Structure formats: C-alpha cells, structure tokens
C-alpha cells in the first residue's frame, strides 16, 4: 500500500477560456493564477490541453510562463513542445502532461517567474483550451 499525499486543489478551465493563437512571437495568456485575500498566489498544474488545428499545416505549441525580470518579459517554456496535427482535434490528458507547477515562486536558477500560463504557437489560428488544477487557499 502506498500513501499518496494529495494536496487540496480546485480543477477548473483556464481563466481566459477558449484562446485563438496569435502565433510567434506573440504570447497568448491562457490562465491567470488566482490569489487569496492576503495576496498569496495560487499555483497551477496543467491537467488537460485541447486544441483544433485547421490552419493547413502542423503547428507547434509551447506552454510556459514569463520571466518578468528581463527588460522585456521573456517567454520561459515549461512543457515540451506539442505538435497540433493539421486538420485534427488534438488533446493531451493528465497522464501525458508533465505536472509542472506554474508558480510565482522563484526557482534558484530562474529569474522572476510570473506563474501565469502562456501559449506560444508557431502559427496563428489554432484554437486552444486548457484545464488546470489550482493549489492554494
């Protein structure tokens, strides 16, 4: 028997809802972290990604956050590239997505991560929605 530690979470859709990708180099916000009354940010883990690609070619999707300490906020990729195949509905579930925790918390090797989840798509017009687990209070 194993004892798994399950942290309390709220499962919800990405706060921005259905996003139509703008395409490189523009980032599309896809989930903004909530905050409690004391201003403490929640964290989030992507549990599901769904998209529809009717652009005429395969499109690469990158999910990540921003490094806000750079002069111009930099994209920080957090999940390996995903390829949205042309003409298909593509989806990835929680057993396939690495559970990276998007957080305002700084990591030792990384400058200030904003924590909000952004999409960087290699081409425009892929339609994307995600589902996240938010941790916190």
């Amino acid at each position: 028997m194993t004892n798994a530690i399950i942290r309390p979470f709220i499962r919800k859709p990405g706060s921005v809802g259905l996003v139509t990708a703008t395409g490189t180099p523009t980032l599309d916000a896809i989930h903004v972290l909530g905050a409690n009354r004391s201003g403490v940010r929640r964290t989030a883990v992507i549990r599901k990604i769904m998209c529809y690609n009717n652009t005429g070619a395969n499109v690469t999707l990158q999910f990540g956050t921003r490094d806000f300490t750079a002069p111009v906020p930099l994209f920080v990729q957090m999940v390996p590239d995903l390829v949205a195949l042309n003409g298909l509905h593509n989806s990835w579930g929680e057993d396939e997505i690495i559970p990276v925790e998007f957080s305002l918390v700084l990591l030792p090797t990384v400058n200030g991560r904003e924590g909000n989840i952004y999409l960087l798509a290699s081409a425009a017009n892929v339609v994307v929605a995600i589902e996240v687990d938010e941790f916190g209070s």
Partner: protein
Amino acid sequence: MEVANLYDNGPISPICQIKEHLAIQTDNSWKPFEVNFIEPIPRSSALVVDLINVFSGGVGGVLAPGASIAGQLIPVIQCDDNELIHLRWFVIDDIEGQLWQLSSTARFAPRGAQAGVNLFTPTFDPWLATTTFWVLGTTGNRDARIGCTNLGGAVLPQARVGFFGYRYLLESEERAHPNARYLPSQGK
C-alpha cells in the same frame, strides 16, 4: 435525531430537542427561550444566492479577479420574531465569502483578520462545521450579511453562496432555565 453540540464536526444536527431551553446571546446579553418547534432546512436551490445578483439589485454583472462585493443583506435567511435559524454555508463559485451580523460585526474574526468560506473549505472541513452561525429573530439581530471576493484569475458572472441547517421557533422565558443550552448568535 441526535442532538449535537454547538460546533460538532460532523453532519449538522439540531442543538436541542423540542421543549428544551436555550439562552441565546445577542446584543451582549443572554435571552432565554423555550423551543417549540424545529424543522430542517435542506440544502436546496431556494437557499442558493448569487451575490452579484443581490448587489446589482437583479440587474446582473460580473466580478473581476480580486474584486469584492461588500456585505449584502441576504433576505432568504432573515427571521421573524422568536425564530432562530441555524445554518452552515458554502460557496459554489471561486470566491471567498465573509459573514457579518448585527449589520457590521465581523464573524469568524480573530484580531488580525476575518476568515471566510471558499471552495477549499469543504476539503478541510467536509461537513462545514466551521461555517456554523445563527440568526435570531429579535430586534437588531434578524439579519446576516455576506460579502465576497473573487479569488480566481477569471471574471465571474456569478458569485453564489448557499445555506442549509435548521429552523427553530421559540417562546420567550422570564429567565434562563437551569438546563438551558447557551449559544452565541452573533460575533463579539
């Protein structure tokens, strides 16, 4: 049904039987009553309130991330004279609700903060025992006010809270019965 202590950490139960006695604190005094009638108020759609709807007077609207609605009078849990409502409550949307009684007395409030009820509350307290409060039908204390803050990163079209519990009808007494149970129906 089993009679519970005031804040028992299990399912909600009446805090006395019919014909037993209560001394209820309100306006900083203990008012003695005999209980004449008890009925349950099950969790139901009628006692789910959208604070955005209440705040806007039925017009509707949205609650932006981080935005708050000040305490609103909640008509569905108001009392008549000699009536006591015993409630637990929960939120349905990603908000944190806060409770005020006697118009502006913050409930669930240690010195440094006022606690609230949010979507995580039933995770830590499945029976919502820590959300227990009472509304007494007597001058100055027949109301409860609920306000809320949007804790999520999304704009909310609804900010719903719901209530369930028991309703007691009371008969005023001259003095507190020796076996009366004392309960606080307000904050201090």
